[in-house]
């Protein structure tokens, strides 16, 4: 049976979905299934990022402008292609060199791009033992959450927005 999506490759994954109380079965090849976020046991990617990276690769040409510094990281010479293959970045500067596609990836991996934890500089200012274990200051956190909520609504990430709104309610 050919894949219903691309009509080219053999369908190897049969995905049963319930949409509006209607049961539908999709017959997909491995690649099209991976794009939909479905993985067959045999298609386990080498890295845990596999499906994200595959999706990222597909979308890159249309959605993401070329990284500011060209194809490779100016610091380590690593490219996005290297990253897609190994699942690992070359150096800390890669996060700047590939900031745009990475931000998109981080949003999908973590549901956020903003570090909310301890800040490195804090260690210099307040190296008190165990200081990091204390809850962050609510007011500051609420402001950050509101900013994230605004971004989530802007980018139509409503699932994240709902979660952020719930967290804000708890705080306020």
């Amino acid at each position: 049976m050919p894949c219903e999506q691309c009509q080219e490759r053999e369908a190897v994954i049969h995905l049963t979905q319930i949409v509006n109380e209607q049961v539908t079965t999709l017959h997909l090849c491995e690649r099209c299934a991976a794009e939909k976020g479905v993985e067959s046991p045999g298609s386990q990617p080498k890295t845990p990022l596999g499906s994200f990276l595959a999706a990222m690769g597909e979308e890159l040409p249309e959605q993401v402008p070329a990284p500011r510094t060209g194809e490779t990281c100016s610091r380590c010479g690593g490219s996005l292609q290297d990253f897609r293959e190994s699942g690992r970045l070359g150096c800390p500067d890669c996060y700047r060199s590939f900031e745009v596609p990475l931000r998109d990836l981080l949003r999908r991996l973590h549901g956020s791009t903003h570090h909310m934890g301890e800040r490195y500089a804090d260690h210099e200012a307040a190296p008190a033992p165990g200081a990091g274990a204390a809850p962050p200051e609510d007011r500051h956190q609420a402001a950050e959450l509101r900013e994230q909520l605004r971004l989530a609504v802007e980018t139509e990430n409503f699932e994240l927005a709902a979660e952020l709104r719930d967290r804000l309610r708890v705080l306020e």
Partner: protein
Amino acid sequence: MIDLSLLTDGGVGWLDASGPSSHLVLSTRIRLARNLAGRVFQGRNSETEREDILQIVEGAARDTVLLRRAIKFRLDRLERTERQLLHERHLVSKELAGLDADGRVRSGASVLVQDRLGVMLNEEDHLRLQGLHSGFALDAAYAEVDRLDAELGQRLAFAFHSEFGYLTSCPTNVGTGLRASVLIHLPGLVLTKEISKVLQGLAQVGLTFRGLYGEGSEVVGNFFQLSNQTTLGSSEYELLDHLGKMVRQVMDYEEQARQVLLRDAPAIIEDKVWRAYGLLRYARALSFEESMNLLSGVRLGVGVSLIPDVGMYTLNKLLVYTQPAHLAVAEGVVPNDPELPVRRAQFVRKVLESEVGRRG
């Protein structure tokens, strides 16, 4: 052969079953991923650069309170059995120990260990700070690793980004770099076949599970490592709080499942746990997997007070010392020696005889 007795309590203090809820939770582990600023990540660096990192970080660590007396193991200079031994003690990852399929150890791969704290060097990230506590102790374990992070952070320049947080080689760890894991024993949920529902539920709330030895390992003996999946977008406090709440819920489910088993199938359960005890006590050959499953049965029996007189410490000790490398080292053979199952059964009988007495 490396001398693990150099470590305080041999690096297995976390197995003393002294921690909170230790009848269900074996250990709590906290790991923080850190990299040095201005240096390429491990995947792209050279042997010389890894030696540099080792020297710089060890120098800084010797200057701290928490790792001043640390024992250093250079994995790249150890035999395979010795590396496996450190891995079985949960002191190093499978990757650092070079136990992955390709079986190669990276040059510069090392670990510093002092009491419950350690730092893996030249792993996927330059530094992997870790702390291992007995029982269910997220806050205590984190507080200790956090102190180490602060001590090292004052002496080293870590790669940090104002938006993304601590930068890591793999974007799955970026932000806090925090992975908190709770090693929990869930035979009740497995027996009542509720486990897949529970694990699916955990996935929906952003948690993940692994086997006894962490990433990429299989579940044996009904031990599951539950941990946070994401590291960015929540504070360390929130990540720990969320994991803690969910683990508490899983513990409740497990207790309920045990009550259901005792109520609906008391004879079957009683037979099952005593059968496990009997096999451990009298079998003449035991594979690692079999002994793990039997230990799981006895652990359940002790947990629901069907089997008296067997201590959790005894069970934990058996769990550690019946692992292939541990047993092989104790017996002076190689871990894949065909005699090992016989030696394992002998070892288990001896421990049960001396620590449990002649009842049962």
